């Protein structure tokens, strides 16, 4: 139950977090650079946005399939369109002074299998990559289990990735490189418009109406900004803006699960595990990240920021750490979901954020393959939720 206004705000937690965020930001600026502090603060903004708008992928995809309601998925399509409009000119070098890397990865079996596994896992886990982080921040204890096994899965995935990359692949396909950024953007917007139209038609035919992305509230604008809830429209604009800020400041699109593999591998090595044969960590950014402080990694800082930002938003809304009990099925699905998402994200070059949103917004065809394979995995995951008696059969 969401409350609006400051009446239910968890003041001690909110105050502690505000002070903590300021201290961490100042430390990062002093020990590293302004860039590290800024990406951490971008993470805070993402966490606040995700929690206040309850902007998740697993729940909205499940609602589309089970209830034939598509407002959440339509919001994701609009997010992809807006992010593409912001990204394509920059990645297409329309502004040569702005240097940024695109999330372009090979279109192959690795992405196909990885995204399918991820889509399945996010239904069992009850949260996607971003969803897991913001629900952990919201104080949902079960999601801590999902996150722990997400990290395990991502770590194992880094060890196995070279084997998967040896399977058939069409190589990297960048629409921006193939068509030029303007034509590629036009083509992509047409594809997204068609997808949006199909989703709207599907809901209209199923229910006779279409749910709006805005919502009505009697609260004042300021109250809603601080204490929530936010409409999906607000979330789309905020997420696209923060994703652009990430591209310009960090130099790459918003990513999440690289950090999970990094944390797991660092922990495994600290416990005496042998990682010398894990070629994933033997060159480039990955090797640098492994051999540096964890706080030097931008994805880590953003993930920490998302959790703390969501925690702050939940404290402000008075919804932090809700009552919950974890039964046997809930525990098993949390473990399985976390493992599958972690392993799948590594194979698919990212989760729903780094693989799907960053991939499509960078004009990479692997992002579109991620969307199709991830949705197929979600269908199986929805069926398994019925098998595990988490959900009732559809229509029952």
């Amino acid at each position, binding site marked *: 139950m969401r409350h609006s206004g400051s009446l239910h705000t968890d003041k001690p937690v909110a105050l502690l977090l505000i002070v903590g965020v300021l201290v961490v930001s100042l430390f990062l600026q002093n020990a590293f650079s302004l860039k590290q502090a800024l990406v951490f603060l971008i993470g805070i903004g993402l966490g606040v946005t995700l929690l206040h708008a309850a902007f998740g992928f697993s729940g909205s995809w499940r609602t589309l399939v089970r209830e034939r309601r598509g407002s959440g998925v339509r919001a994701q399509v609009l997010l992809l369109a807006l992010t593409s409009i912001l990204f394509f000119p920059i990645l297409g070098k329309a502004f040569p002074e702005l240097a940024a*890397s695109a999330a*372009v*990865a090979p279109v192959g079996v690795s992405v196909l299998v990885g995204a399918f596994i991820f889509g399945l896992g996010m239904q069992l886990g009850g949260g996607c990559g971003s969803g897991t982080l913001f629900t952990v921040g919201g104080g949902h204890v079960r999601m801590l289990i999902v996150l722990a096994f997400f990290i395990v899965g991502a770590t194992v995935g880094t060890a196995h990735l070279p084997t998967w990359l040896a399977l058939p692949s069409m190589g990297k396909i960048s629409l921006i490189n193939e068509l030029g950024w303007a034509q590629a953007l036009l083509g992509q917007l047409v594809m997204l418009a068609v997808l949006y139209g199909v989703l709207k038609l599907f809901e209209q035919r199923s229910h006779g109406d279409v749910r709006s992305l805005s919502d009505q509230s009697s609260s004042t604008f300021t109250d809603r900004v601080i204490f929530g809830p936010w409409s999906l429209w607000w979330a789309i604009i905020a997420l696209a803006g923060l994703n652009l800020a990430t591209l310009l400041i960090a130099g790459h*699109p918003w*990513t999440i699960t*690289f950090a999970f593999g990094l944390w797991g591998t660092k922990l495994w090595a600290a416990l005496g595990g042998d990682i010398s044969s894990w070629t994933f960590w033997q*060159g480039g950014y990955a090797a640098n990240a492994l051999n540096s*402080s964890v706080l030097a990694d931008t994805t880590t800082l953003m993930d920490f920021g998302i959790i703390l930002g969501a925690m702050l938003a939940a404290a402000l809304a008075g919804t932090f*750490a809700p009552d*919950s009990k974890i039964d046997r099925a809930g525990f098993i699905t949390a473990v399985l979901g976390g493992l599958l998402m972690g392993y799948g994200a590594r194979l698919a070059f990212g989760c729903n954020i780094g693989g799907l949103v960053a991939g499509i917004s960078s004009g990479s065809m692997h992002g579109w393959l991620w969307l199709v394979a991830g949705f197929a995995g979600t269908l199986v995951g929805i069926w398994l939720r019925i098998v595990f008696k988490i959900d009732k059969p559809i229509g029952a």
Partner: protein
Amino acid sequence: MEHKYNRWIMGTAVGVAAIAAAVDHTRHSLPTPQANDIVVIEDDSDDSPCSLDTSPCSLD
């Protein structure tokens, strides 16, 4: 009661994560501050998870 219990679990988890990050941070030397008059040419390939020479792009 459950609510209070969950707050303690979350607080403990955040505390453990903070300690782990601090321990990892102290195992690595801090970057050397750069003098203002030195021009540093950075290699993009080591600067982003999306521009790897040895691994495919978008390692998210």
